[in-house]
């Protein structure tokens, strides 16, 4: 799994390759060691949309937190473009604006307007003038169809719109990687489909590597170049499914025969893992 895959959609992107190498994460609450991630290796080429699929509580988020730098790892290493994020001598990565998380329940600051939220990253970095930052923020909002909501607070707009603002807030920092932690989990399926197309549209304009956690197979196949189906706790890649449906995609691919074939191929594996997780009585996590 070390070969970097060539893909039309990714060949113009040169930054953002993630290499997860033999990562182990053991939680040690009250001395009872729990293995959350078990010798996990995933290679994600720059610009790929990599979907991490697995049942709830399988430890996917642990992996994401390790890349983002919210948690340390027990052993193994994670590299971004050949540079060590965490590994021997550096148990926990330093969070940074090259890898930005889009959170499960959304983390727009409710006390800042949409525009101020989007300007937040560059304002903290302080490299550009306020004028330049806000001009860029307005332009990016216009590109994402968010004009007119600049001075609204996140609590005043729909949840679908909030997710888009959050993605734009991340993209303002020119990240190499976007880490999605089941961001559309709470949305209804109609809103979800709109959000998927909006996300792809944003992706086609700003190619970044996307590490996307989900348990929704349809979402995974529609968005991803590749599915990494994880086994239930401890978390470990069980099967890789290539999605050879060409990008750009729209919702018509959902009814295509190839989509169905891939769905059938993946479904069996996912179901088996979900059953295992259910039998083990795993809780959400």
């Amino acid at each position, binding site marked *: 799994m070390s070969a970097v895959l060539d893909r039309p959609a990714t060949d113009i992107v040169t930054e953002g390759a993630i290499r997860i190498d033999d990562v182990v994460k053991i939680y040690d609450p009250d001395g009872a060691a729990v293995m959350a991630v078990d010798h996990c290796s995933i290679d994600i080429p720059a610009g790929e949309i990599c979907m991490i699929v697995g049942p709830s509580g399988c430890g996917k988020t642990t992996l994401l937190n390790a890349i983002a730098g919210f948690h340390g790892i027990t052993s193994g290493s994670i590299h971004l473009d050949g540079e060590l994020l965490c590994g021997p001598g550096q148990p926990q990565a330093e969070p940074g604006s090259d890898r930005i998380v889009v959170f499960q329940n959304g983390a727009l600051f409710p006390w*800042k307007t949409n525009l101020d939220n989007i300007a937040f990253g560059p304002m*903290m970095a302080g490299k550009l003038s306020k004028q330049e930052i806000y001009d860029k923020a307005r332009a990016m909002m216009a590109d994402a169809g968010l004009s007119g909501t600049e001075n*609204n607070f996140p609590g005043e707009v729909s949840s679908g719109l909030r997710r888009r603002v959050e993605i734009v807030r991340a993209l303002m920092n020119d990240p190499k990687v976007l880490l999605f932690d089941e961001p559309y989990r709470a949305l209804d399926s109609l809103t979800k489909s709109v959000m998927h197309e909006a996300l792809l549209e944003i992706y086609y304009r700003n190619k970044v590597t996307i590490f996307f956690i989900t348990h929704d197979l349809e979402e995974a196949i529609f968005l991803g170049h590749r599915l990494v189906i994880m086994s239930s706790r401890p978390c470990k890649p069980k099967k890789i499914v290539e999605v050879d449906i060409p990008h750009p995609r729209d919702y018509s691919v959902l009814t295509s025969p190839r989509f169905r074939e891939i769905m059938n191929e993946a479904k069996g594996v996912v179901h088996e893992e979900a059953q295992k997780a259910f039998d083990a009585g795993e809780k959400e996590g």
Partner: protein
Amino acid sequence: MSNTLDSTAGPQGAEVTTMTLTMHRVSSWLKSPRPYLMLIGFAAVLGFWFLSVEIWKLPRFVDMPGPTEVFSEWFSKDPYYGLSIYTPEYYKHIGISLRRIGFAFLLATGLGVPLGLFLGWSKSFREYIFPLFEVLRPIPVLAWVPLAIIMFAGSETPVIFLTFLASFFATTLNTMLGVESIDESYSRAARCLGANRWQTFRHVVVPGAMPYIFTGLQISIGVAWFSLVAGEMVSGQYGLGYLINTAYMMIEYPKIIIGMITLGIVGYSTSALVRLLGDYLMQWRVRELALGDN
């Protein structure tokens, strides 16, 4: 709570200003049955007071001043007991109580909010301070009275100290809880977006704790009045608590009731002021709630 932009009943998100929002609130309040129910509530209490004292003359109410006596005294240009809205002395009592409240409240806020923020933010700081805090907090203000008089010179400082004390505990505790209530995703998001520790404190911890801080300040201003009156009854030269206590000693009963009603009105006004300040500082919350209410 509805979060959609097209909620037709509420004010439209983009054009909402503080003024239109206030107008909207006032007009919908007047259209609701609430103001009329409120008037009925007041009328019922005043009516019972009037009937029990002046008409039925119930046995335990013999020494009670009736509403006629109280209100004619309160609004008299030549008050029998020397206290009405036309006497400067009345305003001196209010003014001095307000000055003490203001002083104690500002002191409690100025010390309590930063202390609460640091208690919530730094785990090791909390280990030092919080247990001590939790032992001191349940001691009732009245138990502090003798010590306050021994510790502080004059009649003014002990009263301010007592007023400050309960306010300070309420503010600190709520601020600390406010910091703890902040969803971890916000600090994580800030770190992701490149904020350092200080920037995270300034842009996430302080505004995130704000709703709890203002809940604390609401409680704080309430307990400040409570402790102020307790303090003024034992020490002090002027003030509404002093007024009530001396009126009792001098058997000037209508003055007691005037003092009490005045306390109610002034106390309510100060807590309304705190609420307005909170609304002003937390526009995001006001707007969310305005959309949710309709």
